[in-house]
């Protein structure tokens, strides 16, 4: 069935009455006659006639009922994380999401508003951003945070560029223990700017006088906790900035990068109440020290007063941004991920002081329980002997990809194959979403797989 399409032509213009477009044929005729013309096509006369009204090879319109069925068919071919035990992390994490988040962020007043340029008409969004900046600063132990970036990867890449601006140096050092996707994105961002990218071993990061920054991940890509204190100090000795990409969930428990003196802290806000959603949309987190504020990319909401002395909020320090500074802006970023900054603000508030700690502890204890159980299986071991948070690497008796294939037949989503980095290594993630039964099912399945 196709939606009924009254095909009343206005001259050579067929009419399609969509439920998203109110104008009827009569109303169109009224508007056209106000313009003294008789068909819509005449409005497009500036388009060279040989290219006008090309054939458009798209499917026919669908009713909402048909759309639901079609999308339902596609969705059913995807395995959802909730459909069975899942132990995949590696930059996108399965955490509990309180239901108030979806209910609040889908309010039309939030989701269908534009970027809050018109401050008097956008106090809701602006106050949310100010709350977000406050909570991100507290989470990371930093002095200023912006209103958000695209995602964790681009946030880190922008931090590397910012470090080059601050230090006026043109080389960035990346610890080899950061996410390979982050390394790729930093390379893409740096390729055109004559910035050299160097991969270093964080146990001995030989930095030189040309190095703008050392880029670290905390916990690192494999889940382990780097010695931030020593690394930040070593970086500062060279006059470089310490840039740390930090999992916000871990901040419920671990000492902050700010405490260790990190200069720029970034992260992916996904674990803060945002669904894994096949990789996006997420929100990039970005915080730094007060002294670097004018080199920061992206928006900032500032508190001020109106002409009657009442407190209000505005986008501020906009002379850093593209719409004012154009090619000399600190970044080209414009639209980013405000709705998910809202989601993570609600998440941090709902979890609150206690809940953030509890979630972190649940992840910690469950992952350590899982690691100990797996390490006790014949053929399995833990090749890295360092403190970790919720992810860890297991050395498997055979190819992790083969093991994962057998696990998924049992409806268990295994970890990521990282054997390129660690022989027969599987990166497993255990969060509060994994019950003891899930973990025991994984352990039992692995014990059969050799």
């Amino acid at each position, binding site marked *: 069935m196709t939606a009924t399409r009254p095909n009343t032509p206005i001259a050579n213009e067929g009419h399609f009455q969509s439920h998203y*477009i109110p*104008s009827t044929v009569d109303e169109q005729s009224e*508007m*056209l006659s*106000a313009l003294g013309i008789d068909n819509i096509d005449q409005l497009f006369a*500036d*388009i060279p006639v040989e*290219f006008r*009204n090309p054939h*458009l090879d798209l499917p*026919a319109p669908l009713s909402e009922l048909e759309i639901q069925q079609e999308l339902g*068919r596609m969705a*059913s071919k*995807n395995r*959802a994380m*909730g459909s069975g035990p899942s132990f995949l992390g590696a930059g996108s994490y399965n955490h509990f999401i*309180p239901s*108030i988040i979806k209910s609040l962020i889908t309010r*039309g*007043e*939030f*989701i*269908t*508003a*534009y970027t809050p340029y018109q401050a008097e*008409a*956008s*106090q809701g969004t602006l*106050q949310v951003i100010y*709350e977000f900046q406050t*909570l991100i600063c507290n989470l990371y132990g930093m002095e200023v945070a912006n209103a*958000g970036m695209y*995602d964790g990867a*681009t946030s880190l890449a922008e931090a590397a560029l910012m470090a080059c601006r601050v230090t006026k140096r043109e080389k960035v050092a990346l610890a080899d223990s950061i996410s390979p996707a982050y390394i790729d*994105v930093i390379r893409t*961002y740096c390729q055109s*700017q*004559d910035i050299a990218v160097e991969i270093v071993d964080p146990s001995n990061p030989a930095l030189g006088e040309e190095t703008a920054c050392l880029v670290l991940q905390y916990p690192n890509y494999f889940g382990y906790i780097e010695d931030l204190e020593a690394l930040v100090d070593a970086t500062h000795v060279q006059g470089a900035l310490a840039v740390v990409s930090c999992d916000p969930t871990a901040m419920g428990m*671990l000492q902050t990068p700010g*405490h260790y003196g990190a200069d720029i802290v970034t992260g992916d806000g996904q674990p803060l109440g945002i*669904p*894994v959603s096949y*990789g*996006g949309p997420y*929100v990039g987190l970005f915080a730094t020290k007060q002294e670097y504020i004018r080199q920061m990319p992206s928006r900032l909401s*500032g508190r001020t007063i109106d002409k009657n002395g*009442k407190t209000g909020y*505005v986008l501020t320090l906009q002379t850093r941004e*593209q719409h004012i500074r154009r090619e*000399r*802006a600190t970044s*080209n970023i*414009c*639209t980013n991920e405000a*709705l998910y900054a809202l989601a993570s603000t609600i998440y941090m*508030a709902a979890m*609150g002081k206690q*809940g953030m700690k509890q979630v972190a502890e649940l992840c910690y204890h469950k992952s350590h329980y899982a690691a100990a159980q797996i390490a006790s299986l014949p053929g399995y071991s833990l090749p890295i002997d360092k*403190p970790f948070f919720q992810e860890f690497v297991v050395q498997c008796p055979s190819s992790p990809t083969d093991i994962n294939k057998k696990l*998924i037949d049992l409806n268990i989503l295994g970890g990521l194959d990282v054997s390129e980095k660690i022989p027969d290594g599987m990166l497993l993630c255990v969060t509060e979403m994994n019950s003891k039964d899930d973990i025991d099912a994984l352990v039992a399945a692995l014990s059969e797989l050799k």
Partner: protein
Amino acid sequence: MQQGGNRQTEKLMLERSVPGRVGVVLPDLDVPAQPLPDNALLRDDLALPELSEPELVQYFTGLSLKNFSIDTHFYPLGSCTMKYNPKINDEVAFSPGFASIHPMQPAEHSQGALELLHKLQGFLGEITGLPAVSLATLAGAHGELGGMLMIRAHHLANGDTTRTKVAIPDSAHGTNPASAAMAGFDVVELASDEQGNVDLNALRAVSGPDLAGVMITLPSTLGLFDTHIVEVCNIVHEAGGLVYGDGANMNALLGRVKLGDLGFDVAHLNLHKTFSTPHGGGGPGAGPVCCTNQLAPYLAAPIVSQNGDSYEFSTPAKSIGKLSGFHGNFGVLVRAYTYIRTLGDAGIKSISGNAVLSANYMMNALRGVYHLPFDRTCMHEAVFSADFQKERGSSGLEIAKRLLDYGFHAPTMYFPLIVHEALMIEPTESETKETIDAFIQALIDIDQEVTDDKDLVNNAPHTTPVARLDEAKAARQPDLRWQPEAAD
């Protein structure tokens, strides 16, 4: 409407916080407690609010009521295409089969998602006439960066190392020069002629062996279709450059013309404008990049390819690399796919027809009342100037603020930069004629107020949660987070 008690939103969350309250109850630990790491690795305090669930819902609902939005107000913000955002699109994007799938899970278990992405690539390629598509870029400006890096990679692959300049019209959006600069180019500004088209003599003057390309917005940010567009593309191509298209304004052209046919080499689309995905108060968006087959090998990774009956991610042969952590803003892409399938071939074309009709109808009704610096048939938006009103003492900003009192969101102001006192108005196809008529009347009434009671206009808005804000103070003494000391 005034809210009382705890439903007032003035106090921030950390000021409302009451020790002991919780917003969420979590399950107990069901495994034996494990040894904790060295105490030195653990933090002492975490300053987050302590609030119950009802308080949170009341607070955030209260804040939402301080926003204008498409669902609550006509939002004719030029260049932003604030059209209706269908609810089914959100519902689908949040369904578990899309929202709960992990980006790294095996392709065999994500075939529905990959099929959707593959088909969306095809639709966007068909709509733009630029058949190769990457969905990995996360906003318009991000797509611009990707496209400009592709142009750079193309020239370098041809051994062409002297092409360092990119020419951009003076009417362009700020992201264009900012993106070109991030991609390592020197930006030269191109003048517009008195018709609002690219000045061809200015273009010829910069079209030499150092020109990497141009960035052209079509229709331009003046809301006009550049009648020289084919010649613009030819001049650039003859000089060995490439043409980048800023497709943020595609709402005007859907089904009317394909950018590829006109000579564009690479372009981005703003799905959060043209394809109705909600703007979210400043994102998420998505800025897919579409290009010719010639440039396809340079697209940002990953793209989706079909292999018999199944779909998989792949990396184009000479890809500029990855620009985002995973595969793009999937939830936004799901919404755009749903929208395109709902409207289909006939509906897609009726978007542009109705959007352009509404804009011209509005422009015509206001001609003479507000100055029209480029008085030609417009596309999806019309750019007025408040010069007439300025002579009588009210600026474009003041008129825009006064519109808020009439219950309409303000137009885009002071952009494009080449129009004095610019008021850029985009009604979109999803607004009724009644709303557009009421808006026209409001602008006519405000013009009269400028004559009769200028102070009323110049002190506007009078009805919003706050009056005009002190932006200078905000910038001079940046207050960017709440701190306990600052509370008293």
